[in-house]
């Protein structure tokens, strides 16, 4: 087996530069903060630019389905930048729904998601691990769906939802238009003000069946694996921002007549964090590469999540702590990063869940 490619290509670096420039212009943290308690917590204009004009939403979509036919490697770079900026855009829902629709070779909605004109998500609880059992909370009777799914990411802004459901043939995936009758969406007050979710209630809503049986299970798992793998990159981007911003602060903040970064206690903490971010980047790149090559995806994603979901919290907590009192205030972005970090740690299962999975995959069984 050849070693995974863990570096960034020139193309990927170009993509990063473009995305970063746009996010710097359109979504600095003051704008994110101003938005997060407003009527419009998401910046959908920004999303349309990212998704449509820059074509990011098409990256995962194969060319024959109207997409750019790129791979998770490119999208992972975008994820890093989204994390770095805690951008309030429906990125995660888009990854989930796109991966699911691609796995089902869907042709109608996918192009609209790919060009950014419509928004979609996948109706699974945000804390669902990729290897979890197929959800059974929605029942399908013919084309009529009934049931409730909580913690559905980006639900409020979604035009389409792919819903895992159980019907006469067992597992199935259905496509539901959120404007259809029988669909109710209730937003939840989130710890992470920059990423929204809510409860989806279906009371006889009409759905179009996309896949059933083993195909449906495979498609759902692929969607969760893709999103969890890319989330690791988002986490690395966020952690990197926390590290960078804390290093800057340590160089400019004076206490006891010195820069606080000149204290060994602070230096060692930041050096440790740098080590963590470096290892985090390697496992996140590994997950992206595995998704792109379709090799050992389960292990690569479990590994990335087991490592990055704790790393991101460590980084956000150090970011706050080393900023001292200013980091505890609303006017400083530390809380935006902390909220995103802690919530993303829970997203697709906490580290323990993924370590457990690694135990199965690496033949290290429980006693």
């Amino acid at each position, binding site marked *: 087996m050849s070693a995974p490619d863990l570096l960034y290509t020139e193309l990927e670096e170009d993509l990063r530069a473009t995305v970063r420039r746009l996010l710097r212009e359109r979504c600095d943290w003051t704008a994110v903060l101003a938005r997060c*308690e407003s009527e419009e917590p998401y910046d959908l204009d920004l999303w349309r630019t990212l998704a449509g004009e820059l074509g990011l939403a098409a990256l995962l979509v194969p060319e024959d389905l109207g997409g750019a036919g790129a791979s998770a490697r490119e999208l992972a770079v975008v994820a890093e930048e989204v994390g770095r900026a805690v951008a309030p855009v429906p990125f995660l829902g888009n990854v989930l729904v796109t991966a699911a629709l691609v796995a089902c070779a869907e042709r109608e909605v996918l192009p609209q998601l790919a060009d950014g004109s419509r928004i979609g998500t996948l109706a699974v*609880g*945000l*804390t669902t691990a990729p290897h979890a059992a197929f959800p059974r909370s929605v029942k399908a009777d013919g084309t009529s769906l009934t049931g409730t799914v*909580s*913690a559905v990411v980006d639900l409020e802004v979604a035009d389409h939802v792919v819903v895992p459901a159980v019907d006469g043939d067992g597992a199935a995936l259905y496509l539901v238009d959120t404007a259809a009758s029988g669909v109710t969406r209730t937003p*939840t*007050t*989130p*710890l*992470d*003000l920059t990423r929204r*979710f809510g409860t989806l209630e279906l009371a006889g809503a009409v759905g179009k069946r996309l896949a059933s049986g083993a195909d449906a299970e495979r498609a759902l798992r692929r969607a969760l694996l893709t999103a969890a793998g890319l989330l690791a990159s988002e986490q690395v981007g966020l952690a990197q921002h926390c590290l960078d911003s804390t290093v800057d602060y340590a160089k400019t903040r*004076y*206490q*006891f*007549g*010195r820069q606080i970064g000149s*204290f060994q*206690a*602070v230096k060692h903490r930041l050096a440790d964090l740098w080590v963590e971010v470096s290892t985090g980047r390697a496992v996140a790149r590994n997950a992206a590469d595995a998704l792109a090559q379709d090799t050992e995806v389960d292990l690569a994603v479990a590994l990335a999540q087991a490592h990055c979901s704790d790393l991101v*919290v460590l980084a956000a*907590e150090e970011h*706050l*702590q080393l900023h*001292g*009192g200013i*980091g*505890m*205030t*609303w*006017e400083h972005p*530390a*809380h935006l990063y*902390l*909220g995103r970090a*802690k*919530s993303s*740690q*829970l*997203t697709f299962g*906490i580290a*323990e*869940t993924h*370590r*457990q999975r690694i135990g199965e995959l690496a033949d290290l069984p*429980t006693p």
Partner: protein
Amino acid sequence: MTVDAAELRGRVEEFLAAHDPQRTDRLEFLRARFDAGLAWVHFPVGLGGLGAARELQPVVDEAFAEAGAPDNQPQLNVIGLGMAAPTILRFGTDEQRQRYLRPLWTGEETWCQLFSEPGAGSDLAALSTRAVRDGSDWVVDGQKVWTSLAHRARWAILVARSDPDLPKHKGLTYFICDMTDPGVEVRPLRQITGEAEFNEVFLTGVRIPDSQRIGEVGQGWQVAMGTLMNERVAIGGRTPPREGGMIGEAAEAWRAHPEKRTPALHDRLLTLWVAAEATRLTSIRLRQQLAIGEPGPEGSAVKVAFAEQNQAITGFELEFLGEDGLTYDDWTFRQPDYASLTKRGAGFRYLRAKGNSIEGGTTEILRNVIAERVLGLPPEIRTDKDRPWKELPR
């Protein structure tokens, strides 16, 4: 003559016979309790105490609680009781003790602490708020920040720079500041929990009579150190019960949600439970040491451990709660009466606990204190100690 537990119980009984808690006005009752020396029993006679051992305080508190007597709601005046009172007792004049301690104890007048500034947090001695002598007054100008509860305080303990030509530790003076003075402006400063528990305080031409100075001119640092020692020791009235803190919330969540349990999380919970219990016992040990007059280094140890555990436990709680851990109870802006880690959602606890390792001295600073003062390790090389404050890099 020293007062023992039996005698204290007798005094409380006598007091209750003379002041029926059900029939006496709350404030009258509290004032009378202060005057009877049954407020803080280790304070001197005439100042709310009986010169008894500090460890006997729970005897009195429990006897009053059993009788259904009103208390002085200590949680509403944490800084007054924990910091201002011991400072005034130790460094104040007789007039100051007489003036401030009684309404402080009864809760009629609450207090805040005007120490930190935007440029001076860990390095408190670097502060730049100016106090200039003008006849029998001082005129104070400057800005304070992160001032907890300034929005409801009647008085503040304040440290200001009275001589910028001296090295930073020598040119400070300590005052009592009237928060109702027109030169005092309090602006809420929202924190990451969504509430404004702390504030920015702008001091513009605030006139403080010299009679409200505590300690000598230029002795502000020593007085402030006395205050901070008390902050870090922060002895409450009662012994914390098992599962009394954050671990209790996590344990309750565990008991309430069998469906969320896993073996790995179980081990983590128990590890946290053991650590919390160890810290609780260390704090009890600290109280017992203090009672016999031997404050040990456990004060700093308890603060460091407490902060670390509160953060680990509240983080664990969110992870355990899973989907519910993604939610927040309420972001509504409010200015609370006191800082409570309980009675709110797990997300609030997680965010608020982040302050535990910053407020009242950061964990890093406390580790330095332990390393240097307890372990006797050589101090960091200091270049700022003997130079005039005004020449220091900032």
